[in-house]
């Protein structure tokens, strides 16, 4: 039975891609953008760009107001208590690097940082390199058979030496939601700071950072149907106070002379230089658009498509699904067939999926794989997209076998 997406027409690129015979199933990498975002960018640039937090002139005041309104919208989206807890960065990666440098002073040799075995490189490498700089121990929380962080082992491994826990909310390879409440509560009880990489999680369902009780929550705009070049770092006030300034430059400073300076607190103290103004305003417009949708309908649509995807793959001979995906995406390999060959033939047929290690090389290696194909969904996908993918997969496999 055909399952349409009621929101498909809100994303003009989907129709453009269709005209190029492209079926977009790579939303976990980046998403297509709603018309509301295009309009906001066009309005901002069409009505007078100006730098923020600097100028007394009218365009500057309007840009600053729009920029700060976006901060309010992000705070509301995450249910942060105060907009000052929202720092704009240049992406999730730069938010995580800000944390790894800004918190560095609090670590002493022999301290431990815990991450999980399924982390994206963005939530692995900043901590790995911090551990190397400071002689810390990076503890890797193993996965259980359902491709979740193994809770029993995690509760053992996170101990009094653990100074920080950094985990993904939703795996970008396995599509599994991690048991954050239990993990975070345990880490907190050990006196560790908690960082949640919400890059995938934020796209699927609304999450309340106060309820999560994490110290930091990170996501990137472009995976949430917003523009690239914008990331968000939420922090609890007490956690933000521990963050030392990292990048230095314009507008993050209070007073400066040639030999010394004092810096602003969060958020502006962590937004050195001109921020991505249009991008931040665009993210605000995207959040307005997303907030206008029926969240239950979106979730029901995504769940149903995801089930359809899982069933279709499970029905095919030799297809092996990685882990037990719960939402948003499915990664798979086909026995006896190289994933690069499948990817090649899907590309030939206009199916845009991702092949390879998905920026999680250690995870793939742990699964004994060089790579996998990942199909990921956005709210604009419909069941015809999946049917085209299945047909292309069947044709490709027939050729390869």
């Amino acid at each position: 039975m055909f399952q349409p997406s009621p929101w498909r027409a809100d994303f003009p690129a989907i129709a453009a891609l269709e005209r190029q015979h492209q079926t977009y199933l790579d939303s976990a990498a980046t998403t297509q953008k709603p018309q509301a975002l295009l309009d906001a960018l066009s309005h901002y640039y069409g009505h007078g760009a100006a730098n923020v937090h600097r100028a007394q002139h009218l365009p500057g005041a309007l840009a600053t107001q729009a920029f700060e309104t976006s901060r309010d919208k992000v705070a509301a989206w995450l249910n942060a208590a105060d907009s000052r807890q929202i720092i704009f960065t240049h992406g999730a990666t730069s938010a995580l690097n800000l944390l790894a440098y800004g918190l560095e002073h609090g670590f002493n040799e022999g301290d431990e940082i815990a991450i999980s075995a399924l982390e994206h490189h963005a939530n692995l490498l900043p901590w790995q390199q911090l551990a190397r700089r400071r002689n810390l121990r990076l503890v890797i929380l193993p996965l259980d058979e359902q491709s979740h962080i193994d809770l029993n082992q995690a509760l053992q491994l996170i101990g009094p030496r653990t100074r920080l826990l950094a985990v993904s909310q939703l795996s970008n390879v396995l599509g599994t939601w991690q048991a954050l409440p239990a993990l975070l509560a345990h880490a907190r009880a050990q006196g560790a700071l908690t960082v949640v990489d919400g890059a995938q999680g934020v796209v699927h369902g609304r999450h309340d950072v106060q309820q999560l009780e994490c110290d930091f929550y990170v996501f990137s705009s472009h995976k949430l149907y917003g523009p690239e070049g914008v990331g968000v770092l939420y922090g609890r006030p007490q956690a933000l106070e521990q963050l030392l300034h990292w990048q230095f430059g314009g507008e993050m400073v209070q007073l400066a002379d040639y030999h010394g300076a004092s810096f602003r607190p969060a958020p502006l103290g962590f937004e050195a230089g001109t921020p991505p103004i249009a991008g931040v305003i665009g993210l605000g417009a995207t959040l307005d658009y997303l907030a206008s949708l029926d969240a239950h309908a979106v979730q029901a649509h995504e769940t149903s498509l995801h089930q359809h995807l899982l069933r279709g793959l499970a029905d095919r001979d030799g297809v092996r699904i990685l882990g037990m995906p719960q939402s948003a995406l499915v990664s798979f390999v086909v026995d006896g067939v190289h994933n690069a060959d499948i990817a090649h033939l899907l590309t030939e047929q206009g199916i845009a999926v991702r092949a390879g290690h998905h920026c999680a090389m250690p995870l793939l290696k742990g699964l004994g794989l060089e790579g996998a194909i990942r199909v990921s969904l956005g709210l604009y996908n419909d069941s015809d997209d999946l049917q085209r993918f299945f047909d292309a997969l069947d044709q490709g496999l027939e050729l390869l076998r």
Partner: protein
Amino acid sequence: MSLSSEASQALQAFQQARGWEQRARLLMQWGDRLAPLDEREKTEDNRVHGCESLVWLVANQQGGQWQFKATSDARLLKGLLALLLVRVQGLNSAELAKLELGAWFTELGLERQLSPSRSNGLHAVLQRMAQLASAA
């Protein structure tokens, strides 16, 4: 530069191919023709990184002429490697440096396989060849 008979044969076959299926079949056939590599030749030095699949490129210069061997664990990439080798086999460094390999794959109707955004490895192999040619 005139084409070798194998290269001319490849060009004719691919220019006549209609549709992605026929091109894919041809690629697999050409891949099967690649001379196999000894396990001894599959060294880390001969590995070409930057590919989603395993790729090896073995290069030898005899009397100023390059002789290449290459293989991959991915079948379609093997085909692309075969098409590359038929074009460059026996060239000297100056000829190799001058050769527009992009144009060669365009003639074959396979230009999209060369894009740097593709992680299929062909791009990385070409870069390795260019390094070899300029270093020799």
